[in-house]
């Protein structure tokens, strides 16, 4: 909170400093010295605030990598540190996506890993051999400090330093950004937001000055961004859109021409050097806008040149004819290229940006990711607090003062507001612009209301009464906004520590007496796998846990969070949704040794596999509509039940059997109370597992691991084998002729 207090002082001093411009040279030196030292102090405070608020996760839990994707990034970084960069670039990972393998080096964004490897090597060079895990854990907080600085520079371009400092403070602690950058959240977004801001900052600088140097910096930052995050497409579309708007507004200048061409040419060629991107910039429709605006800009430049040479009247004719020709030619060309398959068709993710229901119907794999769900209203407030209502006001203020860079912020905020509404994860790109806009609005407000100079000047001009009123209103408004700032800090701290600091690998819970307890079932299970299974063992699980199994248990997985092969995921889905004997054959075919399921019924953990089961069924049904039918898993009323009324298909499915195997026995009278679905599962509902052996269940039964039985040595079906094992020794042989297929 102290940072905020200090920050508010700044505009005050800055304003007074401006007033005293006319004082002597010596005084000016003194004031500017105080200003810059204050600024430094404020920055140090902001950096401390932004880093320390991200350390909740480490302090409350421990220094580990969070969630799912960061585990892959961490594993890749380890590989890079242990091998050469060339090995990393050509890394063929045979321990995922068995038996397909993954060309990992060519299908990842290497920016994050190379940056941390670079830091690791640099620290070793200066005699600080830090464990790579610690670098990865503290990577995001460190970069959030840089983000704060870059945001400051960007906002300075929009208004002035006062707004810049406010924006830096906001971005430092705003929960919308913290959600993806707490310590341990070693994800691409951690570095990408920094680069996003840097690219925009250089772009606006380049645009303002028509500077080749700054535009080249923008292109280099863009290249870095491309190497770090798939979200670079956002920049690829936003900058051309900005330029397009400027042209439509009739604001074409040679500065725009220089800035855009420099950025586009260098940026595009540089981005093609990333193996995963390759030729996408000239093939994919996501990049067509940038290319189109590039061409348009050449035409506009030509038009501008011609306009300077010939008369107005002739120019109008030339303009209309060429516009019509270009439109026809462009549209026809686009259709033709798409039709011939030379440019990629519109991707599913693209469609789902426009129609939120598209993915749910057509591509369950995309819709099944919780990040791709539409956002809820409270989330906006939770992530940005009072900035969310300053944001529209700021956009209005931008309209009042419509310079080129303000158009940029307007375009950014309009586009991003829409996209954030469609996909939760895009909230992350909206947050910076909210912070910038909020800072601009607030600093404009403070410019006026925090200016108490009338107190000193009233003696000469106005009456005392009016000056008192002025001071009073100003004090009132300022005080209320300072109170809002205080609330904001309070809110940010609370949200950060309660909502965004859980590593999701370990789950927090409470003991009866209210003290904190940690549920550590995941790591317990992964450690069991690491210690008790063969190094070459293949583990089948739903794809959510693939990266964690690879990272923590170091075992080969069938599918993981890099969902590049829908069919392969459908195989696992089918295995989970089918009866035992079908699953067994399918899994044996893929050399699977163990199956891992997450079951939250004992603990009351809602994100378990039974709740994800419908997605598995849908994805499998997409490939095998004859064998897996979603309808069969519902009871007649259209309900999805797990108790005695559950459908037969449901009870026979492998997922059901594995989840509830032995579950009713935990409870008195065999009345198993599922705490997630609030239904009673009895022993009669759960059939025996004949083809799988339970080998491990974690402390709270959150993770359950089953081993596929070996083929029967005598060649029997494993169900016959189980039946025989259950029979008594004193059984008599039957005198009835067996019903068997006779030999042919």
């Amino acid at each position, binding site marked *: 909170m102290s940072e905020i207090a200090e920050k508010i002082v700044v505009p005050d001093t800055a304003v007074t400093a401006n007033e005293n411009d006319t004082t002597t040279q010596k005084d000016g030196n003194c004031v500017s010295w105080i200003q810059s030292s204050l600024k430094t102090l404020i920055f140090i405070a902001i950096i401390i605030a932004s880093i320390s608020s991200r350390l909740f996760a480490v302090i409350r839990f421990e220094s580990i990598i969070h969630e799912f994707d960061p585990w892959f990034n961490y594993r890749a970084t380890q590989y890079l540190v242990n091998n050469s960069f060339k090995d990393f670039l050509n890394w063929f990972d045979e321990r995922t996506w068995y*038996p397909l393998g993954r060309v990992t080096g060519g299908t990842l964004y290497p920016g994050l890993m190379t940056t941390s490897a670079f830091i690791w090597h640099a620290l070793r060079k200066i005699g600080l051999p830090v464990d790579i895990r610690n670098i990865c854990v503290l990577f995001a907080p460190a970069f959030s400090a840089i983000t704060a600085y870059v945001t400051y520079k960007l906002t300075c371009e929009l208004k002035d330093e006062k707004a810049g400092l406010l924006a830096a403070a906001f971005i430092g602690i705003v929960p919308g950004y913290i959600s993806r950058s707490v310590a341990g959240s070693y994800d691409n977004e951690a570095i990408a937001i920094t680069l996003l801001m840097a690219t925009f900052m250089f772009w606006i600088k380049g645009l303002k000055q028509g500077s080749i140097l700054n535009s080249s910096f923008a292109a280099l930052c863009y290249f870095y961004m491309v190497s770090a995050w798939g979200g670079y497409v956002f920049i690829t579309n936003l900058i051309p859109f900005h330029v397009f708007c400027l042209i439509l507004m009739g604001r074409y200048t040679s500065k725009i021409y220089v800035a855009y061409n420099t950025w586009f040419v260098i940026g595009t060629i540089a981005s093609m050097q990333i193996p995963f991107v390759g030729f996408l910039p000239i093939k994919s429709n996501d990049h067509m806008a940038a290319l189109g605006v590039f061409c348009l800009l050449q035409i506009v430049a030509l038009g501008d040149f011609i306009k300077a040479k010939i008369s107005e009247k002739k120019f109008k004719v030339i303009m209309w004819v060429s516009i019509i020709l270009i439109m026809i030619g462009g549209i026809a060309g686009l259709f033709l290229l798409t039709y011939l398959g030379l440019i990629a068709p519109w991707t599913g993710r693209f469609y789902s940006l426009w129609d939120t229901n598209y993915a749910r119907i057509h591509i369950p794999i995309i819709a099944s990711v919780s990040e791709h769900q539409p956002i809820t209203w409270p989330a906006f407030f939770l992530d940005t607090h009072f900035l969310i209502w300053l944001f529209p006001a700021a956009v209005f203020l931008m309209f009042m003062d419509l310079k080129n860079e303000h158009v940029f912020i307007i375009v950014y905020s309009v586009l991003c507001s829409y996209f954030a509404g469609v996909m939760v994860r895009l909230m992350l790109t909206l947050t910076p612009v909210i912070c910038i806009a909020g800072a601009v609005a607030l600093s404009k407000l403070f410019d006026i209301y925090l200016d108490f100079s009338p107190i000193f000047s009233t003696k000469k001009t106005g009456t005392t009464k009016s000056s008192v009123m002025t001071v009073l209103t100003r004090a009132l408004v300022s005080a209320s906004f300072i109170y809002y700032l205080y609330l904001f800090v309070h809110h940010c701290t609370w949200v950060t520590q309660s909502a965004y600091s859980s590593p999701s690998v370990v789950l927090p819970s409470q003991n009866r007496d209210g003290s904190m307890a940690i549920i550590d079932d995941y790591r317990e299970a992964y450690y069991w796998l690491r210690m008790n299974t063969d190094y070459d063992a293949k583990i089948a699980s739903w794809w959510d846990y693939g990266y964690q199994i690879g990272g923590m248990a170091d075992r080969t997985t069938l599918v993981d969070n890099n969902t590049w092969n829908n069919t392969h995921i459908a195989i696992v889905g089918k295995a989970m949704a089918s009866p035992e004997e079908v699953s067994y054959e399918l899994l044996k075919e893929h050399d699977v040794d163990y199956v891992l399921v997450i079951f939250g019924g004992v603990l009351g953990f809602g994100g378990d596999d039974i709740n994800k089961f419908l997605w598995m069924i849908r994805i499998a049904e997409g490939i095998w509509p004859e064998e897996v039918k979603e309808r069969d898993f519902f009871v007649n009323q259209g309900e999805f039940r797990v108790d005695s009324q559950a459908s037969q298909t449901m009870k026979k499915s492998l997922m059901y059997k594995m989840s509830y195997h032995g579950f009713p026995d935990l409870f008195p009278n065999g009345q198993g109370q599922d705490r997630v679905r609030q239904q009673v599962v009895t022993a009669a509902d759960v059939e025996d597992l004949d083809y799988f052996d339970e080998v491990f269940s974690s402390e709270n039964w959150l993770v359950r691991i089953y081993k596929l039985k070996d083929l029967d*040595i005598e060649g029997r079906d494993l169900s016959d084998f189980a039946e025989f094992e259950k029979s008594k020794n004193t059984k008599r042989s039957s005198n009835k002729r*067996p019903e068997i*297929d006779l030999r042919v």
Partner: protein
Amino acid sequence: MLGLRYIQCFLLLLCSIIVNVHAKSAIGSRTLIVFDDRVDDLSNYSNFFNLLKDHEFDITTLELSDKSTKINLFEKDTRLYDNLILFPVKGKLYSKQLAAKKLIHFNEDGGNILALTIPKVSSDPIHLYLNQLGIYPSPRTQSLKDLFQDSNNNNLQFTAKESIENKIIYSNENAEDSIYNFGDSVSAALLDNREQIIPLLKASRTSFTSGNKTREINWTDGTQGYLIAGFQNLVNARSLWLGSVQFLSNEHFKQNLDLINDLIQWNFQEKNIIKVTNVNHYHTESNLSYDELPYKVTDNITYTISLSQWDGSKWIPFITDDLQFELRQVDPYYRITMKPQGVSPIDPQAELYSTGDFKLPNRHGMFTFLTNYQRSGLSFIHQSDVKAIRHLANDEYPRSFEIPNAWVYLASIATVIISFIAFVLFFIATPASVSEGVTTAKKTN
């Protein structure tokens, strides 16, 4: 030194002499015979036991009519016998001691079992055990009959030519017209479709199994029924079922001797035993193994495998022409019949097979190098090795100037660069005043 050589030679000589007399089992000779005096007299089978002794089997006989006899197949977890011969036995006590589960356990642990059933006695454990293998002998009341055979003594006889099913086990090729006598009390069995079952001798077309009651359904009709069936489980332990005890008795022994000898040899693992001695795959050109140089797509690879077989006394090269190699990634990408290359250079007891040079598919991933040789009567061979085949690295593609098609683009790049430099030079060299004059003139049009 010299003395040692002599002793060695002498031992070898001794071994070969013994072997010439009779073959030895590849796994072991401890044999348990379970017998019940109430069903039959042991002395009726003295010739059969002498044959076993000639085969160097170390025989223990357990007589079960005495109720105090305990049968122990295992001492703690160690198997006490290699082979088990089960004559038909009466009584409940026995069904607990020799329960089907114990027999299965014995068999799964690698022990061989010879089981005999007759229509007179129902030995439940043996029936249950056989049923688990997919062999269903006819129940107690039913016996095999053939009304077309000479019925002066009710003995059932089958000719080799018509009835012998498996030529791998039955070695006597010249004796196609020999006749085997099964006596007058024979049970026939139904077999299911399991591939591990090896039908050995089937009933004649005119035979059938029927009981005393008229309403009963016939267990088998004609060639549905079998009299001898073998079974080999996945750990290569062998079971054999005989539908007649008299087949082994002194009375018919001489007539059946060559078949009995074959069956004993196969059942107790004296013949048709093959094993893999060495598997290898490597880069064809450089002879480097996978560990030295991992495979990448379209590499040229050679796969070799060496096989030995047991001839009763020692391991000798095993020669066949139907040994196949498979390269699989769920589905097979290659299926190559390997050619015998002569005796393996590293192991003189084995035959070397090679696929010759083949090109890996242009597809990266985890591939299984597999030899799956499963022939009825021979030991099963399943040899698999999973290896990753990586994609081409960034510098393993041909360079652009090596591809003739790319010359067009290279030339155009060069042209653009050169003309740009030329333009810049020209632009700098041209005096500025020339262009000024033109613009002002045009503007006024």
